[in-house]
């Protein structure tokens, strides 16, 4: 009996051992799976956000004139390309490196850590911020200057304010500022740089004509609405990667909640913008309705994970109305020439989305300030801080470029079109196009 007992004990021990060995393997497998979820998720979402570059290119091309189409494309191609390499060398380190006082990252340059998964998902965001600028400064900017400032934005300006909010140890994070997918971090940064650029470079020739001392605002029509519409659909599609991917984890099931708030806000943005133009101008305007979709998307970007579906609809609706009002105001009152409405879409609606976190957000989910008013305050502070940071640095940048290499093409070049003058080619060879537009 003793022996059998021993055998019994050993059997059990062996079994238990095998279970625990198995358990080790199991843990490894489960960890691998968990990592695989994240990798697949972030890779696909990152891919979708990359595809937004096509969306921006098409929207900007469609809403400007045929004679500058090639130039717009080159800008979009170049800002991603130069930006990606700069963000690899410097930007990522400044944004996600170890914090220096909550203000700037200071390690992991050249992606020394090898954290390719997160880098890939982040680089496409950096490129988004940079590319927003090209729309507002379209049809008059020197290509060489464009390369310079777009590199500085992705390599320096964007990562630093990004560090404050998304690195985890940033000073705005510490205050409880919440920006889930980047209404402020990405969109506002791009838009405020766009604002400074549009101001400093001045309007396109013929946009604001002085007649008897009074400024008369002229429309310079975009040349290809179907292309612009395609761009908006691509952006909307990519935005599912942008927002839902910002869970940063493939096992965070709230991703589908995010997809729904994103959908509803975008839809409401279209409706808001369309009816606003219908009432204001008498007819539903095509390009403003397209902007409305983007406005709703930018608006929901910050709060998408912490608001209800109903709130998402309200946020989108207001964003849609806001974008029309803002485009009108910037064009007709401020006389700042923003051909594609980038400042209104990404800046104004970016701020709106950031505040909406405070106004509609589930405070517990946010885990920031204790009171609603407190959260709204923190959100306002964050938006303001980023506004100041970007307008000052981007303003300086544009002024320096203006004084040195020059920011703007000559009037003759502008008249003839940037495609011929800057790239020596036409974009629609063979088509008969009115050049006097």
């Amino acid at each position, binding site marked *: 009996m003793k022996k059998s007992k021993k055998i019994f004990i050993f059997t059990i021990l062996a079994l238990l051992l095998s279970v625990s060995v198995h358990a080790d393997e199991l843990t490894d497998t489960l960890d691998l799976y968990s990592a695989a979820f994240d990798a697949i998720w972030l890779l696909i979402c990152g891919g979708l956000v990359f595809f937004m570059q096509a969306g921006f290119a098409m929207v900007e091309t469609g809403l400007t004139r045929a004679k500058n189409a090639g130039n717009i494309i080159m800008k979009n191609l170049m800002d991603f390309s130069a930006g990606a390499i700069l963000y690899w060398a410097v930007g990522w380190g400044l944004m996600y490196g170890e914090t220096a006082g909550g203000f700037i990252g200071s390690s992991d340059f050249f992606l020394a850590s090898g954290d390719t998964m997160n880098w890939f998902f982040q680089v496409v965001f950096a490129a988004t911020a940079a590319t927003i600028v090209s729309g507002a400064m379209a049809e008059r900017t020197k290509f060489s200057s464009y390369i310079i400032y777009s590199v500085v934005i992705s390599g320096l300006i964007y990562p630093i304010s990004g560090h404050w909010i998304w690195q985890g140890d940033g000073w705005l994070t510490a205050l409880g500022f919440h920006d889930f997918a980047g209404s402020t971090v990405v969109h506002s940064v791009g838009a405020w740089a766009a604002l400074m650029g549009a101001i400093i470079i001045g309007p396109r020739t013929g946009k604001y004509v002085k007649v008897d001392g009074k400024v008369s*605002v*002229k*429309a310079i*029509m*975009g040349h290809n609405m179907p292309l612009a519409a395609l761009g908006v659909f691509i952006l909307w599609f990519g935005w599912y990667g942008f927002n839902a991917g910002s869970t940063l984890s493939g096992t965070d099931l709230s991703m589908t909640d995010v997809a729904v708030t994103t959908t509803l806000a975008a839809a409401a943005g279209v409706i808001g913008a369309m009816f606003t*133009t219908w009432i*204001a*101008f*008498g*007819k539903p*305007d095509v*390009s*403003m309705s397209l902007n409305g979709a983007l406005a709703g998307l930018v608006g929901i970007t910050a709060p998408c994970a912490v608001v209800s579906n109903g709130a998402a609809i309200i946020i989108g609706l207001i964003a849609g109305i806001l974008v*029309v009002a803002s*485009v*009108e105001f910037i*064009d*007709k009152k401020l006389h700042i020439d923003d051909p594609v*409405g980038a400042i209104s879409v990404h800046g104004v609606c970016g701020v709106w989305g950031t505040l909406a976190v405070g106004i509609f957000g589930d405070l517990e989910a946010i885990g920031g300030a204790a009171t609603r008013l407190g959260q709204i305050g923190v959100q306002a502070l964050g938006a303001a801080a980023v506004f100041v940071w970007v307008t000052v640095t981007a303003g300086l940048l544009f002024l320096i470029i203006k004084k040195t290499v020059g920011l703007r093409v000559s009037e003759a070049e502008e008249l003839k079109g940037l495609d011929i003058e800057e790239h020596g080619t036409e974009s629609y060879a063979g088509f008969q196009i009115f050049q006097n537009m």
Partner: protein
Amino acid sequence: MKLVVAYIQPDKLNAVKQELFKDEIHKISVTNALGCGQQMGYTETYRGVDVEVNLLKKVRIEIAVTEPFVQTTVDAIIRGARTGEIGDGKIFIMPIEDSIRIRSGEKGEAAIG
């Protein structure tokens, strides 16, 4: 020989062509044009800014004919293009001094048809 030049509404081109064909006038040339006449333009809006369009789309027809055919041609054009509303268009008749068929080198009235 005369050149009959007519500006008509774009959507009347087919009707005019058919009337001309009925009268055995088969040779015409057409270009796209923009015109500003008695017909008022209209206002578009683009992103909330008004755009005054006073150059309207028109079609310009050129028909080279011998003297006897001028009236026939004019009549056919009028039949095809008239609606009685402003914007119906204009016909101008201009002299042609010579006419050459590139293919054969024929000259004068022989080259018109």
